[in-house]
């Protein structure tokens, strides 16, 4: 039997940061609760369907636990505000959907360049432009990776359920602080607007990865704010800590001062990309069903993965050799695992259902010469299991 004791959601005045217990909760609210459990101090955002419930929930909850909620004038301001708050040491979040995500891209590049940890929840709807505001899409996958100009690394999680909205939001904050990158929670409308059982652990069981601070005191040895450690991540000193730091979107040296030469630029940008690439084994997450002997491998993420899992299980029940690779992080992409599967030789083809016109498929095709069957919908509806099953049966 589920634990009924804590089934009640936020009560006025209760002001607990971590709502430990079992809940029946919307994905958007679970994302907000995940942020609270992870210790979010600051939210700045501009409400947009289907992410609005994240902002609403935090507007109600954050002030009660000592945090700050700011409704900004737009998404440009929202992104800039969370970068500023994070540079002052706050765990910071914004939430948006495609149109707002596009507006945030400029400052997302700034966060990547200045290595300011921040978390952006993008509850995807059918796009481009304002598209279908209340209906599902998964077409911001490549934008999440490449949306701001230039080369940089990011991390993006793709929850398939309200439980994962909670769990992966906690993880997103830790990853942002550990690697000093923008981290995306790439939700979709179906998952954001779906209520399901969510188990929130005791506060002491919520993982917490602190930022790496300077090793010396502010008046001690000189502190180089962009001198990277072995993990390629520099230590961070926050505004107000007393250290002399300089932050800029211009190419900079280890002191943070502009250094406008090709050599410094090449080193810096390679490090920004490599700190994710080299640590990909620790960051990347996926789920598998019966991949070891599968001839057909279905690859999917987010809400689509729910239909895909159903189809794979049905196919296997019918004796079809079929496995499932569910991406929990889409970035970094599980390249190693897919290459392994291809190299093993038993896989004959891949099947990639998705709510866009082939963004995930393109990544898979990059890694294999094998046929990659597609099931695309431009947005507004998630694929039904039977459609995926039909492809598996071909």
């Amino acid at each position, binding site marked *: 039997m589920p634990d009924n004791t804590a089934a009640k959601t936020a009560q006025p005045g209760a002001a607990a940061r971590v709502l430990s217990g079992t809940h029946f909760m919307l994905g958007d609210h679970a994302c907000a609760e995940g942020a609270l459990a992870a210790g979010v101090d600051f939210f700045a955002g501009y409400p947009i369907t289907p992410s609005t419930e994240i902002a609403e929930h935090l507007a109600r909850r954050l002030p009660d636990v000592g945090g700050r909620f700011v409704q900004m004038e737009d998404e440009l301001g929202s992104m800039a505000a969370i970068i500023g708050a994070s540079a002052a040491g706050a765990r910071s979040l914004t939430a948006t959907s495609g149109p707002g995500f596009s507006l945030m891209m400029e400052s997302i590049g700034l966060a990547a360049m200045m290595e300011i940890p921040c978390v952006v929840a993008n509850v995807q709807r059918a796009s481009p432009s304002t598209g279908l505001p209340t209906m599902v899409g998964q077409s911001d996958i490549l934008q999440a990776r490449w949306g701001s100009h230039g080369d940089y690394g990011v991390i993006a999680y793709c929850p398939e359920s309200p439980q994962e909205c909670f769990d992966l939001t906690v993880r997103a904050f830790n990853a942002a602080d550990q690697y000093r990158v923008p981290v995306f929670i790439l939700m979709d409308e179906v998952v954001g607007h779906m209520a*399901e*059982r969510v188990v929130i652990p005791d506060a002491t069981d919520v993982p917490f990865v602190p930022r790496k601070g300077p090793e010396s005191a502010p008046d001690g040895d000189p502190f180089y704010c962009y001198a990277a450690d072995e993990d390629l991540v520099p230590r961070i000193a926050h505004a107000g800590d007393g250290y002399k730091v300089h932050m800029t979107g211009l190419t900079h040296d280890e002191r943070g001062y502009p250094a406008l030469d090709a050599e410094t630029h090449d080193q810096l940008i390679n490090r920004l990309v490599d700190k994710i690439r080299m640590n990909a084994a620790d960051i990347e997450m996926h789920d598998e069903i019966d991949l070891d002997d599968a001839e057909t491998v279905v690859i999917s993420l987010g809400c689509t993965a729910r239909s895909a899992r159903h189809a794979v299980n049905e196919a296997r029940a019918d004796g079809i050799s079929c496995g499932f690779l569910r991406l929990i992080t889409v970035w970094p992409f599980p390249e190693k695992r897919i290459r392994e599967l291809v190299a093993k030789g038993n896989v004959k083809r891949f099947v990639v259902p998705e709510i866009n016109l082939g963004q995930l498929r393109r990544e898979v095709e990059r890694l294999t010469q094998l046929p990659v069957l597609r099931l695309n919908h431009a947005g507004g509806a*998630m694929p039904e299991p039977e459609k995926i099953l039909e492809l598996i049966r071909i």
Partner: protein
Amino acid sequence: MRTEVRFSGVGGQGIVLAGRLLGKAAALFDGKHAVCTQSYGPEARGGASRADVVISDAPVDYPFVRDTDVLVVFFQEAYAKFQPSLKPGSMLILESDLVQHVDGEENYFGLPATRIAGELGSQLATNVVMLGYLIGKTNIVSRESAEESIRATVKESAVDLDLQALAAGIQRAKDDEA
């Protein structure tokens, strides 16, 4: 065993709350798996509103209603929209003051839930009267679980009214059996 329930009406009738109450009763208090999804048409009060609840003994993969087992309709427009999706054997529950049904429909039940809620003190509880009727007819969740779900969800001042509304709906279903 997968059971699919669709609540439909217009924004402001508590459609989504009815779905959440049912889903929560199943998922937290009846030990089942349940998913509640919602749509809100033109995003405003007065627009079409729908909540789908899928309850199952196994984890629910596809979260939407496709083979409607029970359609609960609060408004004429919603009836027109979803009536064609009924399959043989589907149960139909209507707000009989607000929805005119097609003659000869099988497995059809109606109750003036808005009036019943009004007599209890507030038409705001219409959704819970309908929920009570659904539970009385189908036992899809236990009465105790529905009561727990109400206590765990609605604000303190509405708990008594909603518990009464639930009881009135269940009673009405029993009376109809007799």
